[in-house]
């Protein structure tokens, strides 16, 4: 089982991720061509302006209205993306398989980032349960997705500290990580693929068409 998880499973997960993401982006681009108002109104200046305001912390009014939540969200997302790429244990595996390596996070920082992700995820779940506006539009799939995203981080931390049975935990870690990667193109997590394009379009619709701001 370890051999399968360490080898073919990784190939399959990355393949589904890359092929699936490419398929989704291309099919969206083609659909956008059919939608007559998308491409004619896309302008670099307004698209980039909107993206810039919404990717810089506190760049948008909505972000400035909730200082704590914005901080939480940015930390969560930054740590979520950077930890799997830069953590030493993963880079070691890349070196073992492909002979390539890159700068790694110091272990302490890595642990802190994982804890930030886990706490952030739990805070999001708490918000979902307690805030009536969010609760109204929440369904089971929202909780499942948070669980799916947090599972590799929780099991990764457990594996690092060798809690319970290391062999079992590390296999669960690899499987949950692989499932998470494969599900990216086909679930709401795809917002990570599309956000530059949808954000740019909103910037153009508000900035170019209506002559106003969208941040």
């Amino acid at each position, binding site marked *: 089982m370890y051999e399968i998880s360490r080898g073919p499973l990784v190939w399959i997960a990355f393949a589904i991720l890359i092929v699936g993401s490419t398929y989704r982006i291309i099919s969206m681009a083609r659909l956008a061509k*059919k*939608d007559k108002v*998308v491409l004619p109104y896309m302008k670099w200046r307004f698209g980039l302006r909107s993206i810039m305001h919404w990717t810089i912390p506190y760049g948008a009014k909505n972000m400035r209205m909730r200082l704590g939540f914005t901080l939480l969200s940015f930390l969560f997302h930054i740590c979520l993306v950077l930890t799997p790429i830069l953590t030493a244990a993963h880079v070691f595996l890349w070196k073992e398989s492909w002979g390539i390596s890159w700068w790694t996070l110091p272990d302490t920082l890595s642990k802190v980032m994982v804890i930030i992700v886990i706490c952030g995820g739990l805070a999001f779940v708490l918000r979902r349960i307690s805030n*009536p*506006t969010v609760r*109204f539009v929440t*369904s089971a799939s*929202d909780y499942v997705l948070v669980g799916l995203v947090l599972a590799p981080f929780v099991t990764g931390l457990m594996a690092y500290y060798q809690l319970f049975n290391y062999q079992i935990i590390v296999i669960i870690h690899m499987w949950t990580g692989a499932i998470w990667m494969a599900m990216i193109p086909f679930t*709401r997590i795809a917002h990570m693929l599309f956000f530059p394009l949808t954000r740019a379009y909103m910037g153009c619709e508000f900035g170019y068409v209506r002559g106003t701001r969208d941040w």
Partner: protein
Amino acid sequence: MAETAENQVVDPGLDESVKKLTPETIERVVQRVLTKESAARLKIYLETCVHCALCAEGCHTYLSRDRDPMFSPVGKMKNTLWELVKTKGGYLPRQSRIWPA
């Protein structure tokens, strides 16, 4: 559905036109809007919406109704568009005045 002043308004133009709608017409029009007129944008917005409800604070209707979740943008979507997309124009929400039950 929230009992607001609007629910008691009588609108003959709307009511008479609604009586002429058939489920087939509704389904055909909804399908056309979803797949042709607003296709890419609507599809992507619906699929990337993570139900965070941050849009609520930007809606004056929501704010003026004491933060009633029914009137947040995503709440309004849930009551109407999500049902329409899920049933491809076939479902007619009972409480809504727009669709004949």
